[in-house]
């Protein structure tokens, strides 16, 4: 069964429970303690060790008494694309599509080549550096011993593997809901069978439109560029760009034919030239 997330940003209260629940379950470190001054967003983006990220978009008017003021909040996550750039790019087969149709990085296979990082049209995947349980940012030194071993060897150990949302593969295997969806107090993050979620999402848009709100789905249907529909899709009330999402993502591998063709033409041309040069001499 294909499972996924429907993130309804109209229900998000920006509490960041998803970020913490994710890090707690996946035993991920913090990304540092820097104050950004960008609204309430101090984690700034998804990273190798931040698999849920809540964006805060302030849209405040100065003139009209604030009646149209908005503070948009949206919990971003790996999209688990139908055609995933990272999965196609991975040279080791570390990135696979599991039985829940989600894109999963096998940390024990990944060799840290970093090609998936540049192949994700959504800028989701990133590298995880050295695992240092005693480090201030980890504070995991008191973990159960075998958990620490697990981290050292298979996971962040020795650094340099790619990291991103696993859609809580290990929880799903036990029949549990992913940590973020379970924690979310307002059901802004909904987990389930993707088809059901898409139907629910379309209905939700109708309801909101009736209430005079503007709402649109992002990735519930084919998002174009060869990426196809997303297993983790969103309901937005503004342009995708406002949430730092690409309006027109493109699947990198669609460019390969042109690339190889161009190279071939160049080779052929130069080969002929070379053949003539060497023959004529």
């Amino acid at each position, binding site marked *: 069964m294909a499972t996924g997330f429907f993130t309804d940003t109209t229900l998000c209260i920006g*509490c*960041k*429970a998803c*970020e*913490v*629940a994710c890090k*707690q*379950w996946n035993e991920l470190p913090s990304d540092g303690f820097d104050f950004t001054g960008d609204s309430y967003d101090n984690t700034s983006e998804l990273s190798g060790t931040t698999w849920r990220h809540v964006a805060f978009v302030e849209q405040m008017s100065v003139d009209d008494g604030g009646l149209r003021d908005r503070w948009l909040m949206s919990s971003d996550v790996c999209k688990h694309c139908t055609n995933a750039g990272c*999965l*196609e790019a991975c040279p080791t*087969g570390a990135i*696979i*599509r*599991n039985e829940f149709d989600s894109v*999963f990085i*096998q940390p*024990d*296979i990944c060799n840290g080549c970093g090609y998936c990082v540049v192949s994700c049209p959504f800028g989701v995947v990133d590298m995880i550096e*050295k695992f240092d349980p*005693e480090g201030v940012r980890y*504070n995991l*030194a*008191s*973990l*159960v011993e075998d*958990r620490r071993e697990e981290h*050292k*060897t*298979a996971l962040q*150990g*020795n650094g340099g593997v790619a990291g991103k949302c696993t859609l*809580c*593969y*290990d*929880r799903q*295997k*036990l029949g*549990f809901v992913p*940590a973020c969806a*379970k*924690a*979310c*107090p307002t059901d802004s993050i909904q987990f389930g069978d993707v088809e059901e979620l898409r139907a629910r999402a379309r209905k939700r848009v109708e309801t909101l439109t009736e209430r005079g709100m503007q709402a649109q789905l992002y990735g519930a249907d084919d998002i174009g560029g060869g990426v196809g529909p997303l297993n983790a899709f969103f309901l937005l009330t503004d342009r995708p760009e406002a949430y730092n999402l690409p309006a027109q993502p493109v699947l990198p591998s669609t460019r390969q034919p042109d690339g190889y063709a161009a190279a071939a033409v160049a080779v052929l041309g130069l080969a002929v030239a070379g053949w003539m040069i060497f023959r004529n001499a």
Partner: protein
Amino acid sequence: MDLKPTVDLTSILPRDAADLGERIGMLPNVASERTKTLKGRISGAKPVVSLCGYCAVGCSTLAYVSDDGKLLDVEGNPESPINAGHLCPKGAALFGLTVNEARWTTVKYRAPYSDRYEERPLAWALERIAQLVKKTRDDTFVRERNGKRVNHTLGIASLGGATFGIEENYMLGKLMHSLGVVSIENQARI
């Protein structure tokens, strides 16, 4: 840092023709042994019903504990009519509150005029405190103030209560009142 190669050749070399086929193609999808046997760490662990200790909404939590009594994971309790399994960021971090390098789990003692903490045995500290309580009480207990019986001491005060249990509040209140302490306060005024 351990550099023992984590690649086992048998996992790389194809086992048979079919396996070889699976490993060559547009999108080979070969799961590793770890992936095949992957299982959430709370598999088989017993959940203990607890509470979130942060705010007064009163979210019920499930604490998963390993066989050797180590805390594995803390999540919301789906059966609670109050939080139905949900938690806020603080609640979701309960694990980090209990399992935390920064936590102080030993007695710290700072002698008068000293500029550092010293580790002291719990028993020693408790006895010392008990003696101090008795001394201060005996020194400062007042039976009467301008003709009225007061039976109290203003020399000892107590603060705190909203962060621990009802039973503990009762014990603290009972003890302090019996000592004659009147300045007993907690966060309810904060």
